[in-house]
């Protein structure tokens, strides 16, 4: 009793103090509210707890403290006979933490039953996302984790700043929890552009009417990958002449005729007194004919088919490399690295319980 009075006194001083409530004020008000509740001074408890919940900044409560304040605020209202106020407090508690459960050792069964009913009727989802995720577009690496207060239908989208849906991630029923994945792509399969987006989770009623929306702001930045340089076109030193110059044809003609005539004539000079066979004429003629054929095949300006084929193969090979580099660059540019930074989620009620 003495402790309660001291705490209440301190809280009263804080309440009366003009200006900003300092550091531990929220927690002190919470303690005072709980103490007043335990003393069944329900009006005082309600006052302390409402002031504790309204404290902000350094004086504000932690998430656990807010949950505790709301549970005592609902209990105080319930004991004061204000079921609506109790439900309102419990609904705030469920919206804040869909998995929260009243401590059955602290609160009587009728309160926990009321809380369970409110929880069942309050359709809300708590969204957890990693603060920063870096991944390559196309890789399903962004993984929101959803926890529902109760079984209901939800629609999860990634929205652009103007509210248009860039990608629908999920539409259906959620029971307890749900893990989703986003690959950084739009519905059309393109990587999202840099900018501000939001992860939007809409809780719907039985007639698919929107009840609540949870929004998580997403700041997406795009890191473009390095691209491959296109290979240089084949240089002249790699390409062969496609038309015969004067040299090869002349070499064939002069060389073939000289060798052919030499093979036919010179043996008669070397072995003038011997009876030579006609083989030299056959061989010499063959060489001379081959020379003439070679000249015709390689006459100046005549296309050199082997060189044309070689050059074509070189050019085709180069084109294949160019296409490969272009494809690879397209692939890289279509799959940039994304950095997604998430902000604080906010829940907006749309008039539904």
């Amino acid at each position: 009793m003495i402790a309660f009075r001291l705490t209440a006194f301190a809280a009263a001083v804080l309440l009366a103090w003009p200006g900003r409530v300092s550091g531990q004020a929220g927690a002190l008000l919470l303690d005072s509210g709980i103490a007043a509740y335990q003393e069944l001074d329900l009006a005082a408890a309600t006052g302390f707890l409402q002031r504790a919940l309204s404290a902000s900044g350094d004086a504000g409560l932690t998430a656990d403290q807010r949950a505790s304040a709301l549970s005592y605020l609902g209990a105080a209202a319930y004991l004061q006979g204000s079921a609506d106020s109790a439900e309102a407090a419990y609904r705030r508690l469920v919206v804040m933490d869909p998995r929260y459960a009243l401590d059955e050792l602290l609160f009587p069964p009728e309160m926990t039953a009321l809380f369970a009913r409110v929880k069942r009727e309050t359709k809300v989802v708590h969204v957890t996302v990693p603060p920063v995720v870096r991944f390559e577009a196309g890789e399903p690496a962004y993984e929101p984790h959803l926890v529902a207060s109760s079984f209901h239908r939800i629609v999860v989208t990634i929205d652009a700043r103007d509210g248009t849906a860039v990608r629908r991630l999920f539409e259906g029923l959620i029971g307890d929890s749900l893990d989703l994945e986003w690959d950084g792509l739009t519905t059309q399969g393109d990587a999202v552009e840099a900018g501000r987006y939001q992860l939007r989770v809409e809780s719907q009623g039985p007639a698919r009417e929107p009840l609540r929306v949870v929004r998580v702001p997403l700041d997406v930045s795009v890191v473009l990958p390095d691209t491959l340089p296109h290979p240089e076109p084949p240089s002249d030193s790699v390409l062969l002449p496609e038309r015969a110059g004067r040299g090869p044809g002349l070499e064939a003609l002069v060389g073939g005729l000289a060798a052919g005539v030499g093979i036919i004539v010179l043996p008669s000079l070397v072995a003038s007194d011997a009876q030579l066979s006609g083989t030299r004429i056959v061989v010499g003629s063959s060489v001379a004919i081959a020379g003439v054929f070679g000249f015709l095949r390689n006459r100046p300006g005549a296309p050199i088919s082997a060189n044309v084929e070689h050059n074509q193969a070189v050019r085709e090979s180069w084109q294949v490399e160019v296409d490969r580099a272009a494809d690879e660059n397209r692939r890289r540019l279509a799959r940039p690295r994304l950095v997604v930074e998430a902000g604080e989620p906010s829940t907006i009620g749309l008039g539904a319980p």
Partner: protein
Amino acid sequence: MRRTSGVLLVIGVMLIVGEDVSAQPRFVGDLRGLVSVTGVERAQGESIVQLDGTLIGLTAAFRVGFLELGLRYAEGSIEQDAGGQAQDLVMGELQLRVQPVSFLQVGFGPHARSFVSDGTERWLAWEAEARLGAWLIPDIVRGTLDVALGLGGSINSGAEFGSASGVAGGLEVKVPSTPLYVGMGYSVDQLSQAEDARTDTIEQFFLRVGIWP
């Protein structure tokens, strides 16, 4: 027969070695196996004897820059048409060549020709050679003409060496999509004792198979 087997073995080994050698960027080798239909006309005074046969052998060349070392070896049996006594003909040549311009090689070296029957009669000539070569179809068909002139020599039988000269020429064709080429050619060599006491004219039609250098 034993000699023939030995030559085939040597050709086989050198084909394998030659392939490796040809892969070296600065040291280039090429190797050719050859078969020749050979006729020897031996004129001694009023007597003329004709001996015919088949020789098999190989040629090899090893090049560094514009220098080339050439080897040629062939052997076989020749005999008279009338069924006279057969004898073996063994020919071997070693030449050091230089290539001052792309179409010409000049060389010098010993060229031995041995006739083996009861004994061995060996003619050894030191010959200078000029070899002309031209691409008739670029990188596919090549024509060649060799002219050789003996600058001196000796005969082991005691007869006095007179002269030696020769001409050879032919075609070489690269087999598409392989490292092989085939060739055919004709050659004639004439060896004379002093004062034309005896003159041997060796005429050959040969086929060659080789690895493209």
